[in-house]
């Protein structure tokens, strides 16, 4: 009898130990995911720990209402903890992008797990209270509980996350949890009622977790796909950015660091508007410079003019330009512009390069990413435009993509005003690009007397621009200039405007 009780007690204590380990792992997983996805690790961890401990208290309280079939309930809770805790990370990963109340779900899952774990210890003590001396019982239960917690907190950062990753860690521990439940079903079959039902529940749950565990890499990929809402056909991380190419129906989209760079269905609008006004206004177009624009789409438009002798493209990211020189789909987009013999591709920092360059150009197309951080903000400063001016022939024209005048009017007109500090003749225009919305450009001439409405040359076959600059030059009231400051390296006011305006959306 004594031996049997000892075995019984040992088994249940093993269960406590597992619950404590698994419980803490779920808590750590939730904390880690929350800090990954929401940022601010101190806040997330402390909230998660707080909610978890509190919900354990809630669980402990409700344990007193469970007085029938306690052993069965114990095993069932064990299964449930394994299922909820194990799947929590998967659920969170999948819901992050699509659900606005993500934080609610996060804390809800933490709460449920906490409650279940909280139920177990009082329940177990009730089960064992008649079989073991109370003094020993309390000590043993808590000893195993705390050892389990220690084990989890050591294993989690040192072994589990590095080797399994967050999602598989929680699934793995879910399986251990349920594994113990299965073990209990077999070893305590005489003590349990309706063992077969419990066994079935446990085994089915176990296989659910196992299946998810096996397919977790695919789930991760799917969740990233959901982020884009399209099929990802290519991803590549360069030292400078993450390039993602997606495909849906006949539309290809290129994202750089999760920002849409172009959509193949309407990029012609953007690139025609970026390139052709400047190309038609310039007196000569023999030497053309493109800054940024490593996709080669602007170069494609430039090469439509037969009088162009050479195009110099300066883009920081070697992997990006190489990709657009070698990938068949992408080469199709730029019509092999980047391998054209007239084109020289330089993988340099445009600002540094411009300071060193001595040659002068007829047309300059500036297609940098939006000024979303202080590094990029430098490329829209007075000093940058001054540096650029030194590269211009007397009659040269410069066109610059300058974000959306509709979504970010202050940013848009701030860039325009900054260019006015350097160039005496500056104008602005905009075009509607469905995938971007209303998009804007600034144009400047080195010669104060240049007439932006005068067309020196045209090419046939454009789908959007009809060489009527005045039509793009009109701004409705909701896009009209606001009082802005000039963007300088020492104030970077543009980055603040941009953050303020796009941050609102």
């Amino acid at each position, binding site marked *: 009898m004594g031996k049997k009780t000892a075995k019984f007690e040992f088994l249940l204590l093993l269960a406590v130990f597992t619950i404590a380990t698994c419980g803490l792992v779920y808590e750590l997983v939730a904390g880690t995911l929350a800090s990954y996805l929401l940022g601010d690790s101190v806040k997330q961890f402390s909230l998660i720990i707080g909610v978890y401990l509190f919900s354990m208290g809630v669980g402990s309280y409700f344990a007193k209402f469970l007085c029938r079939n306690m052993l069965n309930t114990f095993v069932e809770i064990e299964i449930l903890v394994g299922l909820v805790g194990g799947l929590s990370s998967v659920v969170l990963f999948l819901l992050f992008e699509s659900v606005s109340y993500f934080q609610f779900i996060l804390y809800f899952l933490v709460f449920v797990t906490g409650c279940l774990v909280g139920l177990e210890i009082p329940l177990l003590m009730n089960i064992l209270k008649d079989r073991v001396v109370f003094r020993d019982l309390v000590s043993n239960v808590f000893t195993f509980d705390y050892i389990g917690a220690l084990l989890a907190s050591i294993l989690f950062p040192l072994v589990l996350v590095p080797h399994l990753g967050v999602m598989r860690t929680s699934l793995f521990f879910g399986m251990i949890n349920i594994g113990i439940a299965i073990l209990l079903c077999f070893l305590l079959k005489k003590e349990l009622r309706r063992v077969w039902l419990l066994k079935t529940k446990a085994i089915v749950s176990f296989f659910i977790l196992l299946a998810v565990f096996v397919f977790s890499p695919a789930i991760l990929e799917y969740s990233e796909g959901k982020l884009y809402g399209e099929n990802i056909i290519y991803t590549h991380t360069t030292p400078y950015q993450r390039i993602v190419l997606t495909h849906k129906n006949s539309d290809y989209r290129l994202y750089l660091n999760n920002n849409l760079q172009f959509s193949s269905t309407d990029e012609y609008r953007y690139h025609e508007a970026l390139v052709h006004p400047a190309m038609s206004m310039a007196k000569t177009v023999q030497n053309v410079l493109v800054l940024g624009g490593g996709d080669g789409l602007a170069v494609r438009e430039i090469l439509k003019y037969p009088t162009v002798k050479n195009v110099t493209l300066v883009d920081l990211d070697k992997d990006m330009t190489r990709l657009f020189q070698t990938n068949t789909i992408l080469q199709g987009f730029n019509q092999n512009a980047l391998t054209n013999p007239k084109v020289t591709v330089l993988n340099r*920092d445009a600002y540094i390069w411009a300071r060193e360059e001595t040659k002068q150009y007829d047309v300059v197309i500036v297609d940098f990413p939006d000024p979303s951080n202080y590094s990029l903000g430098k*490329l829209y400063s007075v000093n940058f435009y001054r540096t650029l001016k030194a590269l211009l022939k007397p009659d040269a024209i410069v066109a610059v993509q300058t974000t959306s005048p509709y979504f970010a009017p202050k940013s848009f007109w701030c860039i325009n005003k900054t260019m006015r500090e350097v160039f005496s003749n500056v104008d602005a225009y905009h075009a509607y690009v469905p995938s971007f919305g209303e998009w804007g450009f600034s144009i400047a001439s080195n010669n104060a007397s240049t007439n932006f409405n005068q067309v020196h040359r045209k090419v046939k076959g454009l789908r959007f621009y009809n060489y009527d600059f005045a039509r793009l030059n009109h701004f409705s009231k909701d896009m009209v200039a606001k009082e802005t400051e000039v963007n300088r390296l020492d104030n*970077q006011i543009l980055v603040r405007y941009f953050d303020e305006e796009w941050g609102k959306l």
Partner: protein
Amino acid sequence: MKNGESFNSRRTFFKGVAAAFLLAPFVQACKEKTISLLIKWSGTNHLLGHRLRSSNFPTPNAKLTVPYLIVGGGITGLSAARQLSKRGISDFLLLELEDKSGGNSSHGENLYSKYPLGAHYLPLPNRDDAELIAFLTEAQIITGYQDGFPVFDETQCTFSPHERLFYKNSWQEGLVPKFGISKDEEIEFQRFFATMTDYKKGRGEDGKYWFDIPLRKSSQDAAIRSFDQMTMQQWLTQNGFAAKPLLEYVDYCCRDDFGLGIAFVSAWAGIHYFAARKHDSAPEGNENVLTWPEGNARLAMHLKKYAKGKTLTHHLVYRIGTRDGKAVVDVFDDLKKESIEISADKVIVATPQFVNQYMVDGRKEIASQFHYAPWLLATLTVSDLHDNYSYPLCWDNVIHGAKGLGYIYNQHQSVAQLQPKKVITYYTSFSSRDIPASRRALYLKRPDYWKRFVFGELKRAHPEIEQQTESIELYRLGHGMISPVPGFLFGEARTKAAHPLDDCVYFAHSDLSGISIFEEAFHQGIDVVNRILHDTTVDS
């Protein structure tokens, strides 16, 4: 460190003091996981400097005569060289102990960046500082004038974002905490700054600003000058300032500018920090500062042009005296290991007083009244600089609650998008009642101790910095800058120490101004030349 002219000091140096140089450059490999960390242990040439104390030098075996001689190639000495040239005098010689001139405005350089070894910025000058504005114009730092205001070259003004503070586990913009302080504390900050603005505008009965730069232009008003009799802490208490964040902020500013905290520094000096810069040379009270990757070594470079071909480095002056109305200077050439005697009509001694006491007889007593805070600089090359991304990396990055003054991001003035490695320089001054003990500790403790000290400081905001650091240069400045303790600024010591000997030995140094900032040294150099030339005219 802005708004604090921290280190804009330079102290000229000269023996034992100043500039950069490998002292005992020894390289220690330190295994940190798989990364081996390179530690470079350097500082001013204090070994050669300390030889002064022994006076053990070979007897001069040659003689040289020059009309004008400058001793010390820090900003004062270089500024004097410039002023001599401006006044049409080209027949002078400048002697420097280190391998190059520059003093506290020296710099180092590695594969990725230049970095300052001391002073690293200059606030925009006060509008009535014509001499400084003229210099900045000739150096093309001021590129023109618009609406009567000088236009500063955009690339030499600190790029935005300027500065951030790590406060309560989060970075925020600026050095004054805006988040995490109570309403009452905020009100006290406002009252403090309002008081400082009053002092900034205030003028004495003599029509002069109460607080001005150079310091000699400040008003004689006794009521204001009496602030020099108390510590900054006493002044704060007397004026009802008690909010902890405010006291910590003012303490930071004082340590930054004077090397000593509010408990030890003169209240007049403490207020001068906030009130002497008028921010009136650019529209809208622009409080920006001028900076360069190499710090004020850039300014030293502009000045050095005037001493080109007239500077002897590795030359240690060990005795200055007068004979028959002429100055006689004994110099040890550390490369040839021999001494020469230079005779000059006029000598400008542009070295600090703790050095002068070993060169000029009878100056020990006076030198003992000059206190110099020791400094430690650590330049780290890091593969990355992870933090919690609560505010982006700035030029000046201050960690609240740390012992040190934070760090400068040396590549901040680069227009490039990315840097393969980042180079940052951490600064700390040793603020204590017992300055000599701090100085001894700085030299006695091993590099490994200071490495751990620096990491301990930076880890508060950058937990992974130790793994991300590839090399460290620890640079020691035993006498980093003059520290204006109470009673020093308007006491007798400064006047006495500045008094010329026999009309042929003149003294000039920022420690004679009492605070260690570029402007003071710059004006010391100009003033001493003007004084000499005026005297000469009178004599003839």
